[in-house]
């Protein structure tokens, strides 16, 4: 059985039930521990069986952040005696007592088993909140069995901001919700907002817990990533903050529309048409220069590198680049994008990245391949790759310009792919 299908043979309603799943050695994508460490002063407590704990504990140990995480192991005794709640409560109390510093916020992660044993964890949290009023307790979930309804990363992204409470809103203060990388260098939106005196609050830049909580005073929440939509919606309902979703595609017009929408809400000037044209021209020049350098080298890209891999493929193909393959989990773009891409390159190879037959894939490639993303690099066994995840803080025309630079560098200089892709949590540092 082929590991890939040509896009002309694929339906948009992609079957997410891939059967047995394979775990590739690529570990750059952040897991819930990485995300949890971005809240300054937060302590994470995981309440799970040994098999689940092992991964999160060693993720933390590899980050040298064992002081930011504790565990409560679920054992056979909990299952038999039905004392999950007591173990949870007493464990948390013990941890608070023994920690050298009192945490400002505690995220308690329960796991799949709690749902199936009908553990009343919310009651435990109510008790803990009364006993420790100075600590913000947040219910968090490491429950992949519930992933069809509440996928783990979107769920955690929402829960992190649950500590924010209804408050006065400041017209000139906005939040970037669900960003883990600074956008200060490669985002037109960030530069424009800053130029116009807007105070941008972004968890990726927060180093103080109280400052982080001031996000509740923002008038607008902007989300860039689809996994942040749970959080955007939740904050809109709970805090009555306006929520605007920015599209992470590669369409010049959509960039301008999204930014104009935000400017209108904030009542600040939009980026002038002249300036936008200037930036579009810069993108086009950059792509032409890149094309001259990399020529017709096959390009492979994956869903871990950018939010909208089909859109990126379409954009590159339209500029005469030789996009050969895409590695995805599911299609995240709208059907029109899929159809346009299929019409443009019917023989584009689509790989289902976590499918069991990927384990047996022949990763050898006769010619040089330029990969965008760790999984594309691993599966093509190429050291010429753009090492990024989740768009790495890039947005808009500036984002495209930077991506061109990264592609050029990746083409010209090899990286130690084997070593890099196996490192957990790309550029994640505990705060």
């Amino acid at each position, binding site marked *: *059985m082929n590991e890939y299908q040509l896009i002309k043979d694929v339906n948009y309603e992609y079957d997410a*039930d*891939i*059967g*047995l*799943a*394979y*775990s590739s*050695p690529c*570990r750059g994508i952040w897991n819930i521990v990485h995300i949890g460490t971005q809240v300054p002063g937060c302590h994470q407590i995981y309440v799970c*069986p*040994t*098999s*689940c*704990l*092992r*991964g999160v*504990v*060693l993720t933390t*140990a*590899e980050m040298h952040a*064992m*002081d930011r995480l*504790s*565990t*409560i*192991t*679920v*054992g*056979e005794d*909990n*299952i038999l005696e039905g004392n999950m709640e007591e*173990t949870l409560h*007493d*464990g948390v109390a*013990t*941890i608070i007592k*023994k*920690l050298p510093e009192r945490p400002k916020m505690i995220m308690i992660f329960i*796991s*799949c*088993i709690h*749902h*199936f*044993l009908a553990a009343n964890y919310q009651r435990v949290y109510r008790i803990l909140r009364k006993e420790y009023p100075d600590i913000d307790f947040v219910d968090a979930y*490491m*429950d*992949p*069995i*519930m*992933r*069809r*309804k509440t996928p783990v990363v979107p769920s955690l992204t929402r829960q992190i901001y649950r500590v924010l409470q209804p408050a006065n809103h400041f017209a000139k203060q906005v939040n970037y919700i669900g960003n883990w990388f600074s956008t200060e260098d490669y985002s037109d939106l960030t530069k424009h907002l800053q130029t116009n005196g807007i105070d941008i609050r972004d968890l990726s830049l927060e180093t103080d817990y109280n400052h982080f909580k001031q996000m509740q005073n923002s008038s607008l929440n902007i989300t860039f990533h689809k996994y942040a939509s749970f959080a955007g919606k939740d904050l809109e309902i709970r805090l009555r903050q306006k929520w605007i979703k920015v599209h992470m595609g590669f369409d010049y017009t959509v960039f301008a529309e999204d930014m104009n929408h935000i400017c209108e809400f904030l009542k600040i000037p939009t980026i002038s048409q002249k300036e936008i044209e200037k930036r579009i021209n810069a993108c086009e020049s950059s792509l032409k220069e890149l094309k001259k350098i990399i020529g017709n080298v096959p390009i492979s890209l994956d869903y871990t590198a950018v939010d909208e891999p089909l859109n990126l493929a379409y954009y590159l193909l339209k500029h005469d680049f030789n996009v050969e393959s895409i590695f995805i989990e599911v299609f995240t773009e709208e059907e029109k994008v899929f159809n346009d891409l299929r019409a443009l390159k019917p023989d584009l190879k689509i790989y289902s990245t976590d499918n*069991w*037959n990927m*384990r*047996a894939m022949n990763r050898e490639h006769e010619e040089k391949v330029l990969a965008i993303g760790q999984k594309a690099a691993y599966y093509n066994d190429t050291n010429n790759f753009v090492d990024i995840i989740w768009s790495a803080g890039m947005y808009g025309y500036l984002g495209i310009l930077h991506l061109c630079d990264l592609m050029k560098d990746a083409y010209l200089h090899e990286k130690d792919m*084997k070593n890099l892709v*196996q490192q*957990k949590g790309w550029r994640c540092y505990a705060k």
Partner: protein
Amino acid sequence: MSDWHTHVFTSTYAADVSGVCSVLYELGGMTVLHDPSGCNSTYTTHDEPRWYDTKSLMFVTGLDEMAAVMGDDSIVIKDVVKAAADLKPCFITLCGASIPHIIGFDYRGVARIIEEKTKIPVLPVSTDGLKSYISGVGLASREWICRFADTEISIRAHSLNLLGVTPIDFTDQAHVEELKKSVTPEGYTVNACFAMGDSFEKEIGIYAGAVNVVPTSAGRIPARFMQSTRNIPYVEGVPIGSYMSEKIQKAIQNSEVDGKNRKAYDKLDMDGNVLVIGEEIYACSMATAVNHTAYAEKNNLKATPFWPDVNEGLNEDELIQRINSAKIVIGDPLFHSIIHNKFTYMVDLPHEGYSGRIYHKNVPFFASSNFDIEERLRERK
């Protein structure tokens, strides 16, 4: 009140599911982990150093809420049959974590159905994700031996098997070769090493071994099983340094003669001032090796082993108390974080089963007659 569940500062040991995958990794099978997600990437990232460079088959079923609530086993059956038809493994192993355990997943029944459909042998290993790798390695080894080993084969005099051997305890093949050399008495041969470095076909002849060597408690379950089926005696111990190496070799020779099981390490007191933390047989062997050094005698050192319970791991309160009352601690570097006094000295000996891949490159060949623990002890300031 002390509570084994809560760990404020310390890590956890590799789980039973990792043990199953690890011990069967090189035998040409396909291991299927019945679990929503997570256990597979934990194993492949932290507990399996061979993952990147080899193509052994290990997958997760992606059990979801609906399949679990409805008890719909047809999904896992269909998925395994489909993958097996394409990948053609020589056998399939079915194990799982906590959710299959609490919903009463019938490993044996499902294994039988898959076997009927694929005509490929299927081993049911009913792990639960609640225990340590010791359990998983042991259960999977027993199941494999029970199913595939040739019980009619003649026992070859002066031959031995090693049981429970995985990278979780012994890091890599080079280390295992040292282990083999160091346990084998003159005139003896290694019949099988279950399961690193040997093929499926070679392991089938495991019952030809006259004595089983158990260098980790992960090998106890298959050792007891083989004794019950063919009366093969076993010797427990790790050849840490020349003293333990000689003791094990002598014990092997004696056990072959009288058919009795032996522990090559000493019976140890629990009140020593040198604390050895690790898997049970390793910790006992290391403590014995320490106690028989001239350095220990001269400095009035007495080593005591401390090992994790298969179900409960290490009790952190007890661990902290023991570490901080010891003069020297021999253990994984991750224990540094709980040393709270200046007089406790740590001798770092990483254990993949505890710290995973973090110190993989720093694990010495401790299972070797050439390993000198005395040298390590002398290094302390």
